[in-house]
């Protein structure tokens, strides 16, 4: 399942590297479920930006769906 999480505003810079973030494919692994998603990535150090709306919105909802009792 390929998912895109690119924010409308892509004007982000990686502070340690000074590089502009680029869209890149990232594997998110949650409790053994792997989602390949497109996120802003630093081309130099590979740091990934997960912006707040996504983290506490749709990503949290998916986490809760996958959670075991």
């Amino acid at each position: 399942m390929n998912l895109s999480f690119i924010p409308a505003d892509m004007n982000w810079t990686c502070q340690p590297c000074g590089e502009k973030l680029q869209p890149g494919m990232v594997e998110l692994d949650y409790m053994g479920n792997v989602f390949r998603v497109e996120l802003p990535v630093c081309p130099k150090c590979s740091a990934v930006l997960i912006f707040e709306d996504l983290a506490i919105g749709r990503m949290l909802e998916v986490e809760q769906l996958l959670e075991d009792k």
Partner: protein
Amino acid sequence: MTRKTEMDVEILHQVESVCPVCLERIPGHLVRRGESVFLEKSCPEHGPFAATVWKGEPAFSSWFRPKIPYYGGAREQTGRGCPFDCGLCERHTQRTCTALVEITSRCNLNCPVCFADSGKGTDLDLDTITQMFASIMTRTGGCNLQLSGGEPTVHNDLERVVGLAKEAGFTFIQLNTNGIRLAEDPQLAFRLKNAGLSSAFLQFDGVDDNVFRTLRGRELFAVKCRAINNLADAGIGIVLVPTVVRDVNMDQLWEIVRFGLERQPYVRGVHFQPMSYFGRFPVDFVPDHVTLPEVMSGLAMQSDNLLQVDDFRPPGCEHALCSFSAKYMQQDDGRLMRLGSQSCDCTPVPAEQGALTSIGVTARQWAGVANESQNSHVQPVDEFDRFLQRARTHTFSISGMAFQDCWSLNLERLQGCCIHVARPDGRLIPFCSFNLTACDGTSLHRPSPNLSSTGQQNG
């Protein structure tokens, strides 16, 4: 430590249990004989007893989920010890996940299989109920609530009771019901929804009237269907709860699940409860428990492996031997996609953490689906949105819980229990302890106005 005594017999653990005749605490062992595990024990006065507690796949040896005990909250002084000091006592290792309040002892059915010994009786008054709700919130810090009985829909002020629960701060309120009144009065579900009811735990033993005649003494299939329609119209989540009995409905496990899947998003899951034996029995009675692995492997076999034994996980909240569960998403083409971890996390986790997770997961899965999710015609913006839109309406849980009776009681399991019956005096008594009876029907904790009926089993 295990000890092999011969080729196919293995003593697995020492356990503590009770004598089915005198209810005195006695030691016993879990003993594997072939593919079955028995709880075997002997009372110095009343002799040996054995009950099957595990049979078949998944293997008993694979089914564990250790927890770091939780000893917080109010505790009763230990006098005679477990299971005599319940309320909770200081040996209890888990907090409350679900508090159960029996708001009436009256019932509008006369089931051959009833642990509550219900029938004629009384309703709890609203002042007592208000006090109990406040006490539960104080003692537990918040948990899920189940209104039970008797049959709670015969309580004269049921809507007010639900409203009081909401006012007390409960966010997940479930009604444990046979559905008869909900079928008779289409407006009742709407009134309960408006009062704050989240979910109906609906007795649903099978997909034909033979099953209902045997277990409930009446043909109820059409009644159940009407209740489901009325609950669906009102937006109350529905969990189908079959009491599983050998030679009665063991062959309908998958049919029941399929019935539920066809009624999504209204039916949110199926929760199997193998029958346990509470009430009065002959001294030489030999119980025939349906075990959890038989339900799991029965589901796999009857569904032609659409469900698989490996799908199911032991619980993170109650003792591993008490339940199983799996959650699925049914995709547009009808296929079932299992959600959740691929393997069990078998490192010990704090029991309290497991309980808090379970409270949230249960409430989200078993409550009704919000109208806006059902009526969402907004085009998903991406694959992720598409996944979420489907998941909001088509996740479905399949679970089962094995209650313990005087034959199968294992005190380690009891001490890990998270489903607690609230009493007017403030005590929270583990469910199986509250319902425990000796084989002559004498109850350990439940006040019993009527011991005259020939007891059987749970419902």
